[in-house]
C-alpha cells in the first residue's frame, strides 16, 4: 500500500514536470537554427593586448603635437570634452612618467623619459580589480577575448570600480555629458553616456566584433600603437615583445595589465 502511493506520487510528479516543460520543448522544436550569431568578420583572440611604442609616439609629439589617437577615440565614442579637471572624461590620455610609473620612476632616468608624457588607457587587466568590486556586473571580463567591458545599461554609478582601478582608467559622469559634445562632431552610430555612469576604454569591442582594429591603433600614422592577441606566439605583439624590453604599469599589484610600453 505504502509503496503504491509512493510510486503514484513519483509518476504524478514526473508527469507534471513533463507537462510544464512542454512549451519549452515546443519552442525549441520550432527553432530552425540559431536566431543570432557573431559577425563572421569578428577578430578572434584569447587575450587582447596593446603595445605603446613611446619612442615613435614622442617623435610625433615633438614634430606636430600629435594627439591623433586621443582625438580619434574620443570622437568615435562621443567622449565629451569637459574643461573642469575634476569632471573630465578620458578614455586615452597623456600622463607624466612619474605618475604613470610611480613604482619605478627615479630622478636619474633619461631626460626624454622624464619630460615626455606617456599614452595611457585601460589595461584590460588579466585579473581586473574593477570587475571584482562591481556589484551589478556592469563591468565584466569578456571570457573569449579578455576585454574588460562596460555594460552602461547596468551601471548604477556606485564608483566602486573607480576606487578599485589602480590606474585611474575610469571616469564618472557627474552630469549629462551631451552639452559638452559639439553637435557637428557627434558620431551618430555610437551612443553617448548619461549622468551617473562610469566609462572607460572598451578596447573598441564594437569595432573588433566587426573585424576592425581599435580606433586609436588605426588613427596612429606611425604605428606606435600595436594591437593583438598576447596568447598567440605568432602575433605581432608577441614578436615585438620578444625582441624589445618593455614596461607595464604597477605590475606589483598583481592586476596583470595588458598594455605594454616600449621606451
Amino acid at each position, binding site marked *: 500500500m505504502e509503496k503504491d502511493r509512493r510510486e503514484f506520487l513519483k509518476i504524478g510528479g514526473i508527469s507534471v514536470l513533463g507537462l510544464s516543460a512542454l512549451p519549452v520543448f515546443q519552442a525549441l522544436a520550432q527553432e530552425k*537554427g*540559431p*536566431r*543570432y*550569431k*557573431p*559577425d563572421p568578420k*569578428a577578430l578572434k583572440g584569447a587575450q587582447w593586448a596593446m603595445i605603446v611604442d613611446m619612442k615613435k609616439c614622442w617623435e610625433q609629439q615633438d614634430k606636430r603635437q600629435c594627439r591623433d589617437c586621443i582625438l580619434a577615440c574620443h570622437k568615435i565614442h*562621443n567622449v565629451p570634452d569637459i574643461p573642469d579637471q575634476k569632471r573630465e572624461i578620458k578614455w586615452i590620455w597623456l600622463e607624466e612618467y612619474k605618475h604613470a610609473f610611480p613604482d619605478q620612476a627615479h630622478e636619474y632616468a633619461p631626460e626624454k623619459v622624464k619630460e615626455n608624457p606617456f599614452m595611457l588607457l585601460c589595461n584590460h587587466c588579466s585579473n581586473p580589480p574593477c570587475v571584482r568590486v562591481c556589484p551589478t556586473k556592469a563591468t*565584466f571580463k*569578456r571570457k*573569449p*577575448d579578455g576585454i574588460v*567591458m562596460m*555594460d*552602461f*545599461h547596468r551601471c548604477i554609478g556606485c564608483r566602486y570600480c573607480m576606487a578599485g582601478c589602480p590606474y585611474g582608467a575610469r571616469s564618472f559622469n557627474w552630469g549629462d555629458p551631451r552639452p559638452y559634445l559639439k553637435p557637428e562632431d*557627434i558620431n*551618430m*552610430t*555610437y*551612443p*553617448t*553616456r*548619461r549622468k551617473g555612469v562610469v566609462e572607460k576604454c572598451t578596447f573598441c*569591442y564594437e569595432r573588433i*566584433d*566587426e573585424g576592425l582594429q581599435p580606433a586609436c591603433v588605426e588613427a596612429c600614422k606611425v604605428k606606435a600603437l600595436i594591437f593583438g592577441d598576447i596568447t598567440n606566439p605568432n602575433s605581432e605583439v608577441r614578436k615585438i615583445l620578444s625582441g624589445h624590453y618593455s614596461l607595464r604599469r604597477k605590475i606589483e599589484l598583481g592586476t596583470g595589465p595588458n598594455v605594454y610600453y616600449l621606451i
Partner: protein
Amino acid sequence: MYDAKKIVPGILIFVVLFTFPLWSNMGKAAPAPKPELPKTEKVCVMDTAYMKTEHMVLLNQWRDLVVRDANRLWVGPDGKEHFMSLQNSCMKCHSSKVKFCDQCHNYAGVKPYCWQCHIEPKENM
C-alpha cells in the same frame, strides 16, 4: 441639519470639481496613435504582432546578446540577417522617432530612457 446652506453647496462644488476631468473630456477620445511605417521595408526583425507588444523585450535581449555575448547578427523570420543595433538598424528604417516611437509612447504615457544615451535620428521635418 446644521449649516445645510453651506454643506450642500460645498458638496456640490466638490463633486463638480472632482469629476471635472471626466465631463470636460466627454466625447473627445484621444485619437488612436498612428505610427508611420517605413516605406522601404516590408518585414521587420520579427512579425508585426510580436513587435507591437514585445519590442521592448526584444531590445533588452539584443542588448545582452550584443554587449555581453559579442553577437552582432540577428536572423529574422524570413531568414534575412539584421545587424543588432537600436541606433544603426532599427532607426535606419524607422528613421523618425517622432513619427514612429513617440506616437504610441506618448499615447500610452510611457517614457523609455533609451534616448538618454542612444542618439535619435535627426528629424528633418
